[in-house]
């Protein structure tokens, strides 16, 4: 009888790894984003990533993977494959001339990526960050259909969803519906200069809210400026089927 072959690992199996945290950016690339806004957004995303990478190094549980969907009249994968945040070099987004702000198809595209069997069973709750400068321009029923497709997927429903509105006019009930948590406000960037700051706040919120046992309401109050009387959802979280 011969012994186990090869350089045998000390543990059975293919080794261990941190649990994946999938972070999907949904970036508005409609015509209204051209010029200074898209430049500011690209700068802000590139600036945000090191904050996420630093959190990844400091905490005890997750490995962060980034993907990005760009959307205008139609959505497309700007970064289709999950990229480890620590290794990611941001590829700038480009606006679509005269492109609309149809959000529903972008949600549906994200839903496909979060479908059962498409992400690891051991993955943590995904995080999604929607950034837009305008109101949704979906044809009737389009926004709802896309959001419904997302919420039909268990991972989509469980996802931590945040939104940044560039300009007060972009803040809308549609963004609140995307977030789906009255304790988590839409972050408003009043100007292009504010975008980077809001993205850092969002990334910090994503990281803190993803930690085991996190009180999302408390994080939202501390980092996102949620009102002090915003309801804490910690006691409402579904822990058992």
């Amino acid at each position, binding site marked *: 009888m011969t012994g186990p072959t090869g350089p045998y690992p000390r543990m059975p199996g293919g080794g261990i790894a*941190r649990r994946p945290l999938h972070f999907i950016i949904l970036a508005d690339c409609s015509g209204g984003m051209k010029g200074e806004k898209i430049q500011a957004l690209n700068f802000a995303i590139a600036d945000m990533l090191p904050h996420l990478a630093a959190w990844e190094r400091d905490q005890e*549980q997750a490995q962060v993977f980034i993907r990005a969907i760009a959307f205008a009249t139609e959505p497309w994968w700007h970064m289709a494959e999950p990229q480890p945040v620590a290794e990611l070099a941001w590829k700038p987004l480009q606006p679509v001339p005269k492109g609309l702000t149809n959000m529903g198809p972008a949600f549906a595209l994200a839903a496909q990526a979060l479908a059962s069997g498409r992400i690891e069973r051991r993955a943590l709750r995904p995080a999604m960050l929607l950034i837009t400068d305008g109101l949704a321009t979906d044809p009737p029923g389009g926004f709802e259909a896309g959001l419904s497709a997302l919420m039909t997927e268990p991972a989509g429903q469980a996802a931590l969803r945040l939104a940044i509105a560039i300009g007060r006019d972009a803040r809308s009930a549609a963004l609140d519906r995307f977030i789906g948590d009255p304790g988590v406000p839409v972050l408003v960037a009043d100007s292009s200069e504010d975008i980077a700051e809001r993205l850092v706040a969002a990334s910090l919120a994503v990281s803190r809210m993803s930690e085991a*046992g996190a009180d999302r309401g408390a994080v939202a109050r501390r980092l996102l400026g949620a009102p002090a009387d915003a309801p804490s959802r910690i006691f409402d979280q579904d822990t058992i089927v």
Partner: protein
Amino acid sequence: MATDSTTDRTTGEVTTWQVITGSARGATHRASGLPNQDAVASQHGPGGVVVAVADGHGHIRHFRSADGAALAVDVACRAGSQAAAVLAADDAGEEEAERAGQELARAMVADWRSAVAAQLEARPYTVEEQFVLNRSADTPVIPYGSTLLVAVITARWLVCAQIGDGDMLAVCPDGGSFSPVAGDDRLDGRRTTSLCQPDALGAFRTGAHDLSQVPLAALLLATDGYGNAQADEPWQPRVGRDLAEFAAWYDRHWFGPKVPDWAQRCASAEGSGDDTTIALLLPGKEDG
């Protein structure tokens, strides 16, 4: 490390089951000051061996889940030993073995709820705990929420029962492996079934396997901190192959320090970061 013997009446062979366990506090629990909320226990009786692991849910709603897990493995060992004695004495067939799994689940749910009630009588909720209970509008049993995985091994039968996440892996000598209980699609990695839910009995998955037909090289029970740390997806085939090879090659005592080390590594910041508990059962044949 503990051993127990079960005798196969048809061959006179004695199978000695060695039970090796390891449990480690998760790195995230360490960082947040939470204790290890897993529990593990085994019991050896005239009928066979029983092993149980449990994972207290950890969320603030389940603030007594470490107690819930400890109570769960305790009642599982007692109920499992009774089941083993019945199975061994009756020379049970397949139907009886299947029924034993269901009866085991029924007994464990009832006994766990009684044990929780007894503890609450002896140690009522504090003012702070009652505040959390009121805020979450939960029933008094919810704070004790825990999973439970139990294996009962007699000379002929492996009877298993499981509620909630975590994994059982039966490993054959050829390296093939299978889960001795059916899967549950509701376990999405974020929510789990639990002993504390109102319909806990219905959420139990049970299974019975004839060891004279399907002999095992090993049986692994683990809380979800183990599976969530595995890089492979699915991880079970390779773990099964490796365990079969380890079991064939190494002395059983080799596993003694290894299993706690595996639990420690899975619970670390390089793995799941979650509490991790492993129970490994290994058979060995001796003449009766």
